C-alpha cells in the first residue's frame, strides 16, 4: 500500500481530484497576533517512521526563504517540484488560511502525521509549529501551534 501511495504522491502531491477513494478535506489555520510580518507555512505529511511523504501546501511565494521552514527544507532539500501548483501567499498575523484538498482516504488512521513549519521574517523559525496525527477521530478537533498558529483544524 505504501509504495503505491508513494508513487501516487510523487505525481499528485497527495491530492486525488475526482477519485472515488478521495474526499474533500478542509484545513483551517488560524494565526495568532504574533506581531510580525506575514508567516511562511509549509504543510506536509510524514509516515509512521517519521519519513517525509509529501507536501499539501506552501504559504509563501519566495523560494529563497524556504530554508527557514527547516524541517520541511531538510526533508525535501528545498525541492520546488514538491510544491508545484500548491503554493499561495504568506499568511498575516491574526489571519486565517483555509484550504480544501481532495485527500486520499488511505491517509487517515494509518499513522500519518501532518506537520506545519512556520517562519516569520526577523523572528525565530518554528519548525513543527504543528504536528497532528491524521485520524478520523481527530477531524474537527482544534490543535494549538507552538508560537504563531493559534489553532489548526482539519474537517472532513
Amino acid at each position: 500500500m505504501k509504495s503505491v501511495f508513494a508513487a501516487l504522491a510523487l505525481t499528485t502531491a497527495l491530492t486525488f481530484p475526482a477519485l472515488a477513494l478521495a474526499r474533500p478535506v478542509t484545513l483551517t489555520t488560524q494565526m495568532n497576533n504574533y506581531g510580525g510580518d506575514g508567516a511562511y507555512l509549509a504543510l506536509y505529511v510524514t509516515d509512521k517512521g517519521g519519513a517525509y511523504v509529501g507536501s499539501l501546501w506552501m504559504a509563501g511565494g519566495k523560494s529563497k526563504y524556504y530554508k527557514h521552514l527547516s524541517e520541511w527544507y531538510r526533508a525535501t532539500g528545498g525541492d520546488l517540484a514538491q510544491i508545484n501548483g500548491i503554493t499561495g501567499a504568506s499568511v498575516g498575523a491574526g489571519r486565517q488560511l483555509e484550504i480544501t484538498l481532495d485527500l486520499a482516504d488511505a491517509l487517515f488512521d494509518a499513522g500519518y502525521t501532518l506537520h506545519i513549519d512556520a517562519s516569520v521574517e526577523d523572528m525565530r523559525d518554528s519548525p513543527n509549529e504543528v504536528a497532528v496525527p491524521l485520524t478520523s477521530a481527530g477531524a474537527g478537533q482544534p490543535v494549538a501551534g507552538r508560537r504563531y498558529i493559534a489553532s489548526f483544524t482539519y474537517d472532513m
Partner: protein
Amino acid sequence: MIRALHRWPGLLAAVVLLVLGLSGAALSVFPAAERLSAPQAEAGQSVADLVGKIAGAYPTVEQIRRAPSGKITAYWFEGGTPKAAVIDPATGQGVASADPNAVERWLTNLHRSLFLDDAGRLVMAAGAGAMLILALSGAWLIARRSGGWRHWFAPMRGRGPARWHAEMARAASVGLLLSAGTALWMTASTFDLLPDGEAQPDFPASVSGGSGVALTDIDMIGTLAVTDLRSFTYPYPGDASDVFTLKTESGSGYLDQGTGTLLAWADATPWQRVSETIYMLHTGQGASVLGLALGLIALAIPGLAGTGLAVWLAGRGARGFRSSPAAQAETIVLVGSEGGSTRGFAETLARALVASGQSVHVAPMSAFAPQSYRRAQRILILAATYGDGVAPASAKGFLDRLAALPVAPKAPLAVLGFGDRGFLAFCAYAERVAAVAKAKDWQELLPLATVDRQSPQDFHRWGLALGKALGIDLVLSHSPRTPRTASLELIERRDYGAKVQAPTAILRFALPRASLWQRLTGQGFGRFVAGDLIGVVPEGASVPRFYSLASATRDGFVEIVVRKQPGGLCSGQLMVLQPGDRVRAFLRRNPGFHAGRDRVPLILIGAGTGIGPLAGFVRANARRRPMHLFFGMRHAASDFLYGEDLARWQAEGRLARLITAASRGARPHYVQDALRAEAAELTRLIQSGARIMVCGGREMAAGVSAALGDILAPAGLSPVLLKAEGRYVEDTY
C-alpha cells in the same frame, strides 16, 4: 535630452520618492540604536564560551543568532512554548525582548512595499530606478552647469530654487546613487533574479548516532570568535540523526552531536558576499554610521522634490502663447532656453509683436528649419548660455544645422543673448551663434545684444532698438516674476556730486518690520548682506530697477547709493525722496557678490555709485580682514561718497588701505591709473590669495579688467584665470 530624462522621472516619481526618502531616513536610526543598545561580546570571547553561558541560563536553548550589529539572540523552549531574548554575552542571560520593533517593522514595510507586498515592491523598485536615473542625469547636469566634472566642487553661482536644487543635489547625489543602486540589487535578490542564495551544504547521509559532545572539545567552536558567528543551532531534542548547524562569516556547515566532527561545509559564494555587503550598505545594519549618513542624505529628497518642482513650474509659467505656423509667419522667434526662463522672454516679445500686427512663429532653436520659413521677414534668436558656453537644452544641434546650410536664410537676423555676468562665459553661446551667422554672411538686422540676469531693462532696451529697426513702437515689459514687495521708509539721505553734475545720494531706509509668521514662512523682506540687491518698483511702472545694497540686516537699515540718471524714472523718484517718504521694494540675493567669511585679503575696486556694496563690506569688517579699497570719483570735494565713514573705518582697522582717483581737478586720473600705480603691491596681494571684487559701470569694469591684465601678466596670472577660480567677481550695470 538629459534634462527631459531628469524632469519626467522626477515629476512622476516625486511622491514615491518622498515616501522612500522620509521612511528611509527614519529607518536609518534603528541600526545605530541597536548597535548602541545591544550588549557586545568582549574581544576574544569564543563561541563555545558564549554557547556554554547561554546553555547554563537556558538549558533548552535551540538556536543562537548574532546580528551584524553584534546583537545576540537566543531561542529556546519553555514548557513547549518557543521563547527568545536578546542575550548579554558576558552572562548568557536575556536582557531584552527579541521581538521586532513594531515601528521599525511598519516603516520597513512602508519603505519596501507600501504594505502592498510584491506589487508595492515593484512600485518602490521603480521609484529606486527613477532615483538612479535622477541621480545620474542630475550629476551630469551639475557637471555641465559648473563647466565640467573637474569643477564639481567649485562654488556655485545662480540663484533661486535652481541654485538650491543644484547645491542639495551636489551634496546628496552620491549617497542617493548608493541607496538607489543597492535598493535595486536587493529587489532583484528578493525576486530571485540573482544567484545569491545562501550556500547550504548537503545534509550528511550518516552520523555517529551518539550525542552529548562537550562544545569546548569541538575545535571549530572552541576557537571561533563570537564576532565571526552568524548562528548556531542545536540538534532537534531526542533526534539522534540530527546535527549541530553552524553559520559563520565564511560559510555554513554541520557538526556531529556525538563526536563534534565537521560532517559537511559550504563556503559562502562570492554572490552571497556581494549581496550581504549591499544589504549592509543599504540598511546600515552592521554599518550604522554609514546608515545614518545615508538617512541624513535621504532627507534631501523633500528639498530636492520641492525645488525641482519650483524650477519646473517657473519654466512653465510663461507658456501658453499660440504661434502662427512656420510657413505663414513674418517673424520667426527661435528660443534656446535651458530652464525655461528665456522662453518667457520670447513669449513676451511674441505677444508684443502680435499686438503690433505681426504674425509670429515661436519655436525652439533645435527646430530650426529655414526652408519652411517661406514668408519670413526676419528671424530673431533669443539664446541662453549654459555653464561654460554650452548650448542650452532647446538649442541642441542648431549650430551644426546652420553650419551645414549652403547659404544663409534671406530674412535678416537679430541675436539676443541671455546670461549672468557672474559666469565666466557670459552669453558665450549667443556669441557663437552670432559668429557662425556672420561667417555665413547672414544679413544682420541688429547687432548682438545681451540681457544680464534676466534684466527687464536690458530686454526693454533691445525691444526699443528692434522696434526702431522694424519701424514700429515696440514696448517690451517683461518681469520674470513679480515678487512681493515691502514698503521701505527713508530715514536719512546724504547728497553728493551736485557741483560735478552727478547728483548722487546715499539713501538709508528703515528695516521693514516682519511679523514672526512672516519671518517663519519667509514672506518678510528677508535677511541680506552687502552686495545683495533690492528691486525698487517705481510708481507708474511694473518693471523693477535693481540697486546694490551697502548694508546688512545686522546694521539695522537698508542703504543704497543712487545717482540721478537723465530721464530715469526710478532714480528720479528716489532722488526726490525725503525722510518719512516710502518706496516699494523687494530683496534679491546676489550670492555671487558677497565678501564671504574667509580671511583672505580683499581688493575692492569701485567707481561712482559702485562704492555702495564695497562700503558695506568694509562696514561689516569687524574682524579686520585686510581690505584694500580703490575708489574712483569725479572730484574729492564733491562726490567722495562715504568720505568721512571711510576715514573712520580706516582708523578702526576695518579698512587696511584707501586709494582714491579723481577724474577732475589738478591731476585727473581714473581708478585704472591708481591700480597701475600700485602694480607691485597688487601682484603681491593676489599671489598671496587675495580676491578681487569690482563694482561700477560696465566701461569702468572693462578698464579695470584690462589694467589688471597688464599688471598680472608678468606674474603669469590673468583676470580670466582668477574668474575661473572665483577670485575675481564683478557687479556691473
